């Protein structure tokens, strides 16, 4: 029988998490509960965040902060602040899953058995978000790219980013509502005019498309350049070949959308 801890505040959550060793964190439960149900995970020590007070969206001037247990469906209301984030959130699974799954869970979820996961990662990468987390060496705030590269043993507290001047999102859609993101590209024009691009669904965690960013003024060339910067997963959702053919199209669409919103 697992030891289940239910912290009642963010500080209690951090203290009970400690260095995270041997601890399974449950936020929305959409990923962990099936693991338990199907016997793939037998947790010894569980931190249940339902009452930890880590949810909520804060807008302070141009800085937007999403608490770790903010539900995905909450993000739809941010459409006038960050169109890409709202569009991406609306594209995730179905209404009931969006009402339960969380921002923090989406950042921490591991690669699934059959497909990449972490639909929001690409948007947050393109937004150049920073992640505040706690773990063995205490609290730390770092770029999301850094965080994704060593997220084991970290408890996400919140994610922050600056409101962009424009953003766009384009995904390879399946008719079935309940799928993980096969492939999606986010484009952001920052307040200083910098263009950032990132893709979700390539392989593993999401990644920035630096080569494409350098050619952002030419959407077709940028699309072609993106391919050279990426590796493509061959999995249950799509073949590597299909992803490779589709990525330039999504890059081009996103850059054209950004151009139109200028």
């Amino acid at each position, binding site marked *: 029988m697992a030891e289940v801890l239910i912290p009642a505040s963010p500080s209690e959550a951090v203290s009970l998490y400690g260095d995270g060793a041997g601890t399974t964190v449950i936020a929305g439960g959409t990923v962990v509960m099936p693991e338990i149900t199907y016997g793939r995970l037998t947790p010894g020590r569980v931190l249940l965040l339902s009452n930890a007070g880590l949810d909520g969206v804060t807008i302070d001037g141009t800085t937007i902060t999403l608490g770790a247990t903010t539900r995905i469906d909450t993000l739809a209301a941010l459409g006038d602040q960050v169109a890409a984030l709202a569009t991406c959130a609306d594209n995730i699974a179905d209404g009931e*899953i969006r009402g339960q799954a969380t921002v923090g869970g989406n950042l921490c979820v591991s690669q699934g058995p059959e497909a990449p996961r972490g639909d929001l990662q690409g948007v947050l990468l393109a937004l150049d978000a920073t992640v505040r987390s706690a773990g063995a060496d205490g609290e730390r705030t770092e770029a999301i790219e850094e965080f994704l590269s060593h997220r084991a043993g970290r408890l996400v507290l919140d994610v922050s980013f600056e409101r962009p001047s424009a953003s766009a999102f384009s995904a390879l859609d399946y008719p079935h509502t309940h799928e993980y993101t096969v492939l999606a590209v986010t484009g952001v024009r920052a307040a200083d005019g910098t263009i950032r691009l990132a893709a979700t669904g390539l392989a593993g965690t999401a990644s920035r498309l630096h080569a494409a960013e350098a050619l952002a003024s030419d959407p077709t060339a940028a699309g072609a350049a993106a391919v050279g910067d990426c590796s493509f997963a061959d999995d249950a959702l799509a073949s590597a070949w299909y992803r490779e053919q589709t990525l330039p199209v999504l890059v081009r669409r996103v850059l054209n959308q950004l151009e139109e919103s200028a």
Partner: protein
Amino acid sequence: MNLTVNGVDTTIESGPLTSLLDVLREELGITSAKAGCEQGGCGACTVLVNGASRRSCLTPVASIDGAAVTTVEGLGSPEHMSPVQQAFTHHYAAQCGFCTSGMMMAAQAYIEGGGSDDHEAIQEALGGHVCRCTGYVKIIDAVAAVARGESFDLSVTAAGTAMTNIGGMA
């Protein structure tokens, strides 16, 4: 732990990580919530938690301690069916019935949220629910009829034929 299940205050004895689905079916004997895929993909286990439609298979019961849970049994009885139940009956919106409870709970949340009879909006609201008999057209028709505030003659189906043996109606 405590839940108010269909209006009744209930003490829960199951362990804290037990899914709400297992609490309902195994501890409380409420079997309308179905154990379909048990990984959030089919919608058959959907119930209302504090009025929001939610996958009971993905919900550790400790995460909703103190909440109000509504299942199909809490919508109405065979003698006094709720508008959603009446609409599903009248429109023959059930075939094998396995998805029906989840569909009705999602429909209930949609109607309580002021949902319209727009078919696209209904499809989006029921988007996480799979019907393997593919009775989607009649299900959507039923929800649209409730959204329009229609009343239902339960002696005949929407197609005008005599009602036979759905939901205990004769």
